């Protein structure tokens, strides 16, 4: 029996972190100082247990799960308990090829983040908040109930709000409020869309319908009825309603992703957030947007997806190009990395908009690869800030001379992010390009759509190489330390940071050389979800 998975992965981290926070916040400063060590260790051990469990799930220690052959809308470790019967709300969890990589990624990043930011100040509240964040994020990915999904979706905001607010930089108040309000606004619009979707069911037709409302929040049941409704000439919910709901849901997901023009919260949040917050924010939280797109609008509203294909493609292209151009102009290292995330999220959107199984698999793999690479980028930025008290590109030169470890990590992360072959990011990007070619040659799109990605390949290389040149190299024989550190010994990164960098680098290489470990199940899944649409796309859509 495997119906216990939601306990160690979701319930325990949330409850344990809340208990720890309540306990710690009622004590005095001395007690908090004393407890940093034990609490940090407990959080680390617990996150390692979670990582062990998810890794064990992948290697089939818990139940005989064939990850390569999960049918679309079929879920492993499926568990359902009644929560609010009158409204048809269940505590329903399950994993498939879409959610499992994300869950594994979250459990992987938690211990890495804890190790990378081992010496963060006020650790007694910081580490429980990271744990809480992890629990809420996993909750988003495993939930198979719209209500539960939304609850966890919003719950992730609270620890992140506090992480930015308490450990953030100078403008942290502005950034945390902007982050919270921006994403909250988008997700309440999404909520209205979800509720409208909820009431657009045939009353009492689905198995888990509520006793009072006659409607069901169950995602698998909704997808089933959508697939049943999308056959032949008929469309689930009708063409007009699909488009309306698609737009409402996509507002929530596009802001979270974020896509231009809804991206302005991201640079502020990232620049102000502490390293650990940035790592989880870029690594997993942004992927919630892409995950949501696949889980709901794409699975439910293929007609609307086809209708808005061009719009998605344009938003994706603009995000890709705009993000890259803005990166060129940045002097702040962290802001540059943040805008590069916007650019990479554009790749995901383009992958979706190609309407090719390979493009979708590219999007899924980009979610995963970017989830490993971008935390490393932010870990580098964090170490930079931590040791040199500056984030300006060019504040110091010749870093390779006096901080070889940091220089190497930076170089590796930058290379991984610009898509060097044999590293994880390359696989996703090349797949996206192939899918785009497919789209152009098969569906008769203009060849000019290739210009954007081609341009961005050059731009990305340009801003990464340029920033490397100005920080790692130059500066003469002895390098040129930042002004505030002239005369002092310049430290390299700490051992815990080195260790975290090595782990992330290892997995970047691993998934770059052997992408099939994750890619196979993603590929299979996208082919299956696509089979449901092929009839529909074949008849020309709208």
């Amino acid at each position, binding site marked *: 029996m495997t119906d216990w998975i939601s306990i160690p992965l979701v319930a325990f981290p949330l409850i344990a972190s809340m208990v720890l926070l309540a306990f710690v916040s009622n004590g005095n400063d001395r007690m908090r100082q004393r407890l940093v060590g034990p609490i940090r260790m407990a959080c680390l051990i617990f996150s390692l247990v979670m990582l062990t469990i998810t890794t064990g799930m992948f290697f089939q220690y818990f139940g005989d799960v064939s990850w390569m052959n999960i049918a679309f809308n079929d879920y492993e470790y499926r568990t359902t308990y009644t929560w609010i019967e009158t409204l048809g709300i269940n505590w329903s969890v399950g994993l498939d090829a879409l959610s499992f990589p994300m869950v594994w990624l979250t459990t992987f990043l938690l211990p890495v983040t804890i190790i990378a930011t081992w010496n963060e100040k006020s650790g007694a509240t910081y580490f429980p908040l990271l744990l809480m964040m992890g629990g809420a994020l996993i909750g988003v990915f495993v939930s198979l109930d719209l209500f539960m999904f939304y609850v966890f979706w919003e719950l992730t905001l609270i620890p992140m709000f506090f992480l930015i607010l308490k450990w953030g930089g100078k403008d942290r108040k502005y950034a945390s409020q902007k982050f919270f309000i921006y994403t909250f606004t988008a997700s*309440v619009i999404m909520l209205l869309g979800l509720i409208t979707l909820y009431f657009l069911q045939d009353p009492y037709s689905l198995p888990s319908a509520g006793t009072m409302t006659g409607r069901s929040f169950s995602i698998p049941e909704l997808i089933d009825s959508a697939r049943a409704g999308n056959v032949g000439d008929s469309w689930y919910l009708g063409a007009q309603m699909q488009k309306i709901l698609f737009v409402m849901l996509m507002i929530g997901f596009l802001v979270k992703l974020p896509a231009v023009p809804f991206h302005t919260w991201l640079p502020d949040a990232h620049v102000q957030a502490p390293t650990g917050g940035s790592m989880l924010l870029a690594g997993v939280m942004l992927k919630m947007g892409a995950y949501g797109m696949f889980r709901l609008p794409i699975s439910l509203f293929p007609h609307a997806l086809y209708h808005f294909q061009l719009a998605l493609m344009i938003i994706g292209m603009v995000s890709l190009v705009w993000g890259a151009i803005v990166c060129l102009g940045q002097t702040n290292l962290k802001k540059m990395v943040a805008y590069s995330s916007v650019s990479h999220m554009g790749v995901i959107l383009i992958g979706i908009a190609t309407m090719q199984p390979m493009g979708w698999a590219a999007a899924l793999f980009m979610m995963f690869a970017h989830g490993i690479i971008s935390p490393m980028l932010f870990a580098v930025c964090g170490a930079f800030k931590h040791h040199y008290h500056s984030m300006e590109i060019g504040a110091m030169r010749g870093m390779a001379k006096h901080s070889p470890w940091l220089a190497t990590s930076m170089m590796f992360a930058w290379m991984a992010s610009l898509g060097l072959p044999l590293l994880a990011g390359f696989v996703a990007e090349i797949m996206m390009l192939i899918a785009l070619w497919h789209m152009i040659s098969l569906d008769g799109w203009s060849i000019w759509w290739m210009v954007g990605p081609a341009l961005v390949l050059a731009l990305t290389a340009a801003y990464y190489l340029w920033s490397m040149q100005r920080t790692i190299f130059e500066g003469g024989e002895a390098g040129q330390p930042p002004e505030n550190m002239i005369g002092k010994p310049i430290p390299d990164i700490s051992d815990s940071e080195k260790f975290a960098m090595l782990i992330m680098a290892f997995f970047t290489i691993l998934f770059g050389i052997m992408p099939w470990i994750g890619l196979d199940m993603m590929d299979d899944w996208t082919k299956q979800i696509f089979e449901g649409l092929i009839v529909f796309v074949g008849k020309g859509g709208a």
Partner: protein
Amino acid sequence: MSTVSNVEPFKDGFIEALCPELILFAGLILLIIVPNLGKGTVRIPGTQKRVMWLLGGDRFKLTSNPRLPAWIATVTLGAAFVQTILSFQDGVDRTAIVTASGKQLMLVNGFSRVFELIFFGALTLAAFASMNRLEVRGVGPKLSTDDLYNNRRQADFYILMLTCGLGMSVVALAQDLFVLFIGLELASFSTYVLVAFYKETEAGTEAGMKYFIVGSVASGVGLYGLSMLYLWAGSLQFDALASQFIINGTDPLPLIAMGFVIVGFGFKVSAAPFHFAAPDAYAGASSPIAGILATASKAMGIIGLLRMLLIVAAPEASEDGTVWLTLLGVLALVTMTWGNIAALGSTNPKRMLAYSSVAHAGYMLAAITAIGAWNWDDSLAGDGGESAVAVLTALIFHLVVLVAFKLGAFLVLSILESDGDASRLSSLGGLAKREPFLAVAMFIFMISLAGVPPLAGFVSKLLVIMGIVKVAVGQMGAEIMAGGDFGLGDVHWVWWLAFAMVINSAISMYYYLRIGIVMFFDEAEEGRTGPLPRGWQVRFAVLACLMATLFMGVASDKLLEICEVAAQSLNYGWN
């Protein structure tokens, strides 16, 4: 549903039916008598003999204790609360209090019971918390006259609390315009005085005066409307009025009367544009009383609106819904937007909570609008009032859980008020360092007000939005499954009220979050860094509110069922 059993006053079954109110009444008498018990004697006329008669004179040690009235009031209200909860255990019976000629005066059913729960719950917490608010100047016989007078205020304060509770529960029970108005005024007058009771500040007296003047004008206008209804229908009974409305509800007279009535109750729920006195009253009153205004008093206004709009005026429902639909929809939109915009700019936490209360009134009016619209299209409706019950359930649930987080927020401010004042945002500064528990509780109340899951405020807001959407969408789901192609144009316009609610929640996030930031990350004001005033009662009340906010967020099933029963028992218009 069980039939109504009729009971005449003071006959069999009367005590069972009105048990909570009778408990309050007994407590009221105790409160008047007990603090006066003493060694007083009276001379038997014609003789020189004096006998002990226990009233007046030097008080006994126990009865002179200035804390005694507070305990009596708390225990009384608590007992009434517990009694109300117990009455849910084996299903609420429906009992009507009738006159000898068979006219219904009051009706005890699920609906009235739930509202009694709200009133008594809020008042119990407020009375308990007020123990730390009203200044007590020593105990014992050696006090100066001034101090004795000051201690005497204790009894007055709690007597007013009990009369307030009594009036409110009469409003919940009323089946007759006259009884309704009596209850309304009893509660209103108590709250006017309670607001002015905060005489330590000038703002308190001023607020009481303002609240009294505006409130009496609103009551007067409402009463005028009620009298016009009487003129038109010749009866004060709700059911008689309702049947009149079915026959000739489009007469101008009842419509004008309904307009006046909406003004009267609109003031009580602080709906725009009748809300102007509310921020002043909330800011001037001591915080527990402001909490009562924002929860129990508002619930009372909502009952009035529900009774008048849904029972009296709803049978008129036609294809487009009831006659007042557009008016109320506009009111709802204006109220929620105005409240939120005004709250954005207010730097006094109590004024901010007052404006947030205005915004919540807007959400509730939106829900009532949706109830009026449920029967809007014959081809798509036909769910036998199911949607109306859903919205009403949501509305009642919202009122119940509002007690937890709104009152809780005011109670936290109450502690700060006894520390000095709570009229500036900066007075919340450094709260997380001074007393982390209060800061965390306040933050949870704030995000619950904003509607962040998994707290009670989220569930209630979700339910209201769900109810409105359900009405707006009607049976469209089934129609679509049968092959229909509908767009937003086919959805009833109340859907846009849900949209407005959603946007307004997002706006409100800003000022709720601001409180959290000030508490956690701003330094305390000059000279206010020390520990806060002691007092376990108010902290206990805050803890109770916090527990309820958390619990109702994740385990709302039981309360939902109770609210559904309540909603079903208000079923004049739709079956």
